[in-house]
């Protein structure tokens, strides 16, 4: 009972006005308008309006092909939209190059992990840091200029690796890590520059379920730190456990949003995405009974 009350008070703070797809937020960190992207005849993304609440954990869910990763790509500059503008912390970011978007504090991870296999785990982490004078061509020749910063970066990297339980592998090439470990590395690396908004594309895919729990604690820790988190996931238990807000996309549009409990009871969402058997033991049903019930 008390839990529900605090949850409600909690959600009061997020939306401004009625809760509906594309609704305004009390304190948005990112506001996007009229974002569209078409590939040939196919409309991948058609978002009229969306606002991401600051300092909260927002989950972006929806079936494959709904446009979630495309939306990520558009917002972070990795893809050019047909139309659209979005405002991040007072800056217009439409048309800005992806590396600049990252520098201004919006960092993302990729669905198909991009842990750099030819570098060691520690080097991967060091690469994630910002403002390293050694990365400038001429200053690179003069070691004293960047040695101190490099040491600082290495320490930060080692601390993060320890949190993600990758410290034992720090000298290994990233290629020697398993798929799930590479995902963790990519997440840890994204945190190196202390971003304002972290966009995680399926961060838990391929990660051992027992490890998932501790990672969720890390993501919650990010929120305590003041970082805003937006993540795409298919694991509904995870979504239910840590997200403050859920946005549902389907066929390029936002079809529902709200607190996780409400969204997951939405019949349209259940039909298209969650499935009616989330809590049913699949050993007891067959595909025929499922087809009949539709």
């Amino acid at each position, binding site marked *: 009972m008390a839990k529900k009350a605090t949850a409600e008070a909690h959600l009061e703070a997020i939306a401004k006005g009625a809760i509906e797809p594309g609704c305004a937020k009390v304190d948005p960190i990112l506001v996007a308008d009229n974002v569209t992207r078409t590939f040939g005849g196919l409309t991948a993304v058609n978002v009229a309006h969306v606002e991401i609440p600051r300092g909260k954990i927002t989950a972006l869910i929806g079936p494959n092909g709904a446009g979630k990763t495309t939306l990520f790509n558009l917002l972070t500059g990795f893809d050019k939209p047909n139309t659209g503008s979005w405002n991040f912390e007072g800056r217009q970011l439409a048309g800005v190059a*992806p*590396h600049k978007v*990252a520098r201004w504090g919006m960092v993302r991870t990729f669905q198909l992990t991009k842990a750099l296999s030819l570098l060691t785990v520690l*080097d991967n982490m*060091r690469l994630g840091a910002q403002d390293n004078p050694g990365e400038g061509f001429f200053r690179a*020749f003069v*070691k004293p200029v*960047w040695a101190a910063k490099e040491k600082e970066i290495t320490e930060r990297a080692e601390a993060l690796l320890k949190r993600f339980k990758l410290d034992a592998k720090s000298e290994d090439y990233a290629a020697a890590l398993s798929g799930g470990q590479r995902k963790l590395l990519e997440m840890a690396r994204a945190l190196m520059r202390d971003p304002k908004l972290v966009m995680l594309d399926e961060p838990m895919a391929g990660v051992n379920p027992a490890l998932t729990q501790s990672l969720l604690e890390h993501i919650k820790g990010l929120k305590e730190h003041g970082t805003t988190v937006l993540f795409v996931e298919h694991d509904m238990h995870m979504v239910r456990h840590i997200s403050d807000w859920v946005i549902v996309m389907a066929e390029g549009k936002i079809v529902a949003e709200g607190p996780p409990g409400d969204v997951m009871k939405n019949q349209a969402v259940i039909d298209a995405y969650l499935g009616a058997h989330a809590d049913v033991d699949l050993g007891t049903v067959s595909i025929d009974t499922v087809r009949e019930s539709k």
Partner: protein
Amino acid sequence: MWGSFGFGILCAAVFALVLGIPTLRLRADYLAIVTIAAAQALYYAFGTSQFAAVTGGSNGLSEFGGDFYALNPIPKGRYNLGIISLSEKEVWVRVVAWGLVLICAILMYVLTKSPWGRTLKGIREDEDAVRSLGKNVFVYKMQSLVLGGVIGALGGIVFTLSSQTNQPSTWVSNFTFMTWTVLLLGGAATILGPVVGSAVFFMFLMLTQTVLEGLVNIGALPFLSIAQVGQIRYLLVGLFLMLLVIFRPQGFFGNKKEMQFNG
């Protein structure tokens, strides 16, 4: 002399910049094709009679090494190193050349071990990953293209100073492919690789010439004439390159592990 030296380097840098702007977006193989084509274009341009006043047209320039050899501190005479006998001019050129190689190798080593080098390694594998970490990939690629051009220019300068002639016909595509073979032989993405690779390769080239010529002269290869030896040599080079790529793509010093991750 210093003026022309500096101008040569500057030209290389500018050319790399100009070439890089439209082409760095291209995939590696297309970039290679475009750079070869650009070199060919220059080759023809400098060979035309239009520029003859500056470049000497297709005959090129000669006897321009005066100032360079004036700097030579080595006393006049012949120096014997085993079976080779060199004049003081030849020794000077070699000293300067290897000195430059050493300097470049040290600079490259420092660079690759630096954060800049690390970023480049990342770009080699996945540009988008590096962009997502806030680095301007285009700038890094441009810097390495210019650096490569400048080092190439240094090599070219010493090369022409040693022979004191510079004709466009020297720089045909054969030369480019031999440079590639050297790179592969030594191991791409290594520092010692190109150094050792070029030494071994040209030694191999000279040896085959000498050995084959010798064999023809003593009648051991009745089906070959001296003139054909020159061409057979290149046949062997081609064969060697193929075998290298098949059996040891990482060359002498390349990292087998790195090759495996790529494959």
